[in-house]
């Protein structure tokens, strides 16, 4: 893309009426450059709010981890680390395909864009499937607080049952919140894929794809932290 000064969007002369003909530019912006800057900046501010939204429950996690460390270690060993690792790989792959989708949108290649968007959606659904199976396992192991929390003795590993239940509360709250954001992301991308397939995403204005990409990468980053903090507390060598 050329340098900013010679940006390819037609520079609007000051006395030209504000709303130029192309439907791409919204009437309140001077030029396409300002619109893209505003959209991305707005998304980053929204991601800052999401950071603090997850931050609230991370704060609780950090506090209770320092207060009830044995319970957290025991609870963490109750989780299947291999399943967690698989989910991490799936989500990193989906981030890659999402980045490629944004790249395709930039280049204006409709087929590649739709292809990468659908592969991101498929990987997202795969992640949710893995997550759902893990929840089923936890149900069978009777580790779901509130419903049937009767852990077998050896799964407590000597830690008090209350602290393990507290850890499982955190496990379900944090991964549940993350899964909820995944579902919203998949819905977003599905709509985007359809709109892209109909060819409504022109080369000059692909910010919708870019913004969805930012959201998807953010949800991936949350999982990058969730995996070590929930599954690998104090290492898995015991």
């Amino acid at each position, binding site marked *: 893309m050329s340098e900013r000064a010679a940006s390819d969007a037609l520079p609007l002369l000051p006395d030209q009426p504000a709303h130029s003909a192309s439907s791409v530019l919204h009437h309140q912006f001077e030029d396409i450059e300002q619109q893209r800057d505003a959209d991305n900046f707005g998304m980053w501010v929204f991601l800052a709010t999401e950071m603090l939204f997850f931050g609230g429950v991370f704060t609780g996690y950090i506090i209770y981890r320092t207060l009830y460390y044995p319970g957290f270690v025991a609870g963490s060993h109750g989780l299947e680390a291999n399943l967690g690792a698989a989910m991490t790989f799936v989500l990193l792959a989906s981030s890659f395909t999402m980045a490629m989708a944004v790249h395709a949108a930039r280049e204006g290649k409709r087929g590649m864009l739709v292809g990468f968007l659908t592969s991101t959606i498929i990987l997202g659904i795969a992640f949710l499937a893995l997550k759902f199976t893990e929840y089923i396992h936890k149900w069978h192991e009777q580790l779901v607080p509130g419903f049937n929390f009767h852990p077998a003795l050896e799964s407590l590993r000597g830690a008090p049952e209350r602290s393990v239940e507290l850890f499982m509360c955190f496990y379900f709250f944090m991964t549940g919140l993350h899964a909820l954001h995944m579902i919203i992301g998949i819905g977003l991308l599905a709509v985007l894929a359809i709109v892209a397939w109909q060819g409504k995403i022109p080369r000059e204005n692909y910010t919708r794809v*870019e913004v969805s990409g930012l959201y998807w990468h953010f949800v991936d980053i949350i999982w990058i932290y969730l995996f070590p903090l929930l599954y690998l507390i104090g290492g898995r060598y015991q």
Partner: protein
Amino acid sequence: MSEKQPSVGTYILVFMALLVLAALTTGIAYVDLGPFNTVIALAIAVVKMSLVGLFFMHLWYSPGLNRIVVLAGFFWLALLVSFTLADFLSRTWITSFDLAPR
């Protein structure tokens, strides 16, 4: 933002690095390093986050304002965590009767 963009090659390189780091995180967890397990796991997570943030989310190429917003987000998060943790940890310093259960 619309200026330089990472090439496909960069994306593939970053993706490979992420996969290696993910494998590393799980691998190292099975090695007994005492307290360092947590430190290393978090360090790897920070590196992965920076890779995704800088390249996949184009922070490396975007104007300063977006970076300031990210830093502000981290600063406020650190504020919430540190002050709350300060309360919980300093509860047992008081020399009088109200000692929090440990």
